[in-house]
């Protein structure tokens, strides 16, 4: 049986080498470009008619917009609307990455820890920098919850700092592990089906049973694609809120 982790290997489509650094155009880059193109197409096709009762394209665009807008206004309030383009871009990036990977023979760029790590570091860095810019040194009062007995303070501060620093780690690993495990499970069970049909001792039709499990798993993966994008956007808003209004 083939190694189910082999599907995450990156192939170069157009090798580009600049001063010893490898910045080739890979299949991951191709899917990223496709994701951007699809997002732009979806949003632009949505505003074409601008009817009061939305048609199909406009309905989808409005649903995506309202989902992210609800998250942003609920967590960051009215003045949080300026963070909406950032959160919407993040949401669409993660959503396109998750969804385009479900197409057979395609590639999931969010299943690589370097991509999700970069996104999570961007969110964490932006939240910390905004907090530092806005509150200067008072930002570090984030690590000291109110109403603590004085003796517990040297115990609580390292715990709070570590839990703050673990945010980008958990954010990136959650998305990467979900995507990687989902696709690995799909390939594993498809491998069962292939093995059963190849080695079937007379009863080759048994090989179709893992296929039904795969169908259900594909439905689960579709749901998880949306949920993970939604959770990424919500956690971004929560981290921004923590940095802006220190509790």
């Amino acid at each position, binding site marked *: 049986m083939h*190694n*189910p*982790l082999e599907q995450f290997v990156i192939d170069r489509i157009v090798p580009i080498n600049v001063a010893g650094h490898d910045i080739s155009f890979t299949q991951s880059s191709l899917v990223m470009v496709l994701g951007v193109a699809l997002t732009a197409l979806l949003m632009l096709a949505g505003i074409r008619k601008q009817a009061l009762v939305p048609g199909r394209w406009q309905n989808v665009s409005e649903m995506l917009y309202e989902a992210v807008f609800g998250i942003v206004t609920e967590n960051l309030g009215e003045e949080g609307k300026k963070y909406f383009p950032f959160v919407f871009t993040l949401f669409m990036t993660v959503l396109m990455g998750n969804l385009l990977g479900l197409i057979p023979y395609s590639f999931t760029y969010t299943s690589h820890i370097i991509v999700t790590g970069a996104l999570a570091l961007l969110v964490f860095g932006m939240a910390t920098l905004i907090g530092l810019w806005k509150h200067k040194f008072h930002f570090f009062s984030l690590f000291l919850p109110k109403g603590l007995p004085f003796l517990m303070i040297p115990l609580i501060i390292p715990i709070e700092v570590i839990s703050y620093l673990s945010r980008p780690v*958990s954010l990136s*690993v*959650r998305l990467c*592990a*979900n995507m*990687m*495990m989902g696709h*690995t499970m799909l390939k594993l069970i498809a491998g069962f089906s292939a093995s059963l049909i190849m080695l079937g001792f007379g009863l080759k039709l048994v090989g179709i049973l893992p296929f039904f499990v795969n169908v259900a798993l594909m439905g689960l993966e579709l749901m*998880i694609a949306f*949920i*993970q994008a*939604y*959770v990424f956007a*919500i956690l971004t808003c929560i981290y921004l809120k923590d940095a802006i209004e220190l509790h």
Partner: protein
Amino acid sequence: MEPQVAKIIAAGLAVVAVLGPGIGLGILFGNIISAIGRNPSAADAVKSTGLIYFALIEALALFALGMAFFFIYAV
């Protein structure tokens, strides 16, 4: 002990850690169902909040499963 045997044993031990999130998810969903039962008009809010926290807990189960695959294929 050969490396191959140790890898498989390590993977088996790593999957035992999926027990914790399993129990956690059971508690979470039980509370969601009883909350919807007590107050059916809050079903939407409970469901959307529950979905977010489901993803957060599921991440822990996936950390464990990821380590298991890591031990088999990538060490």
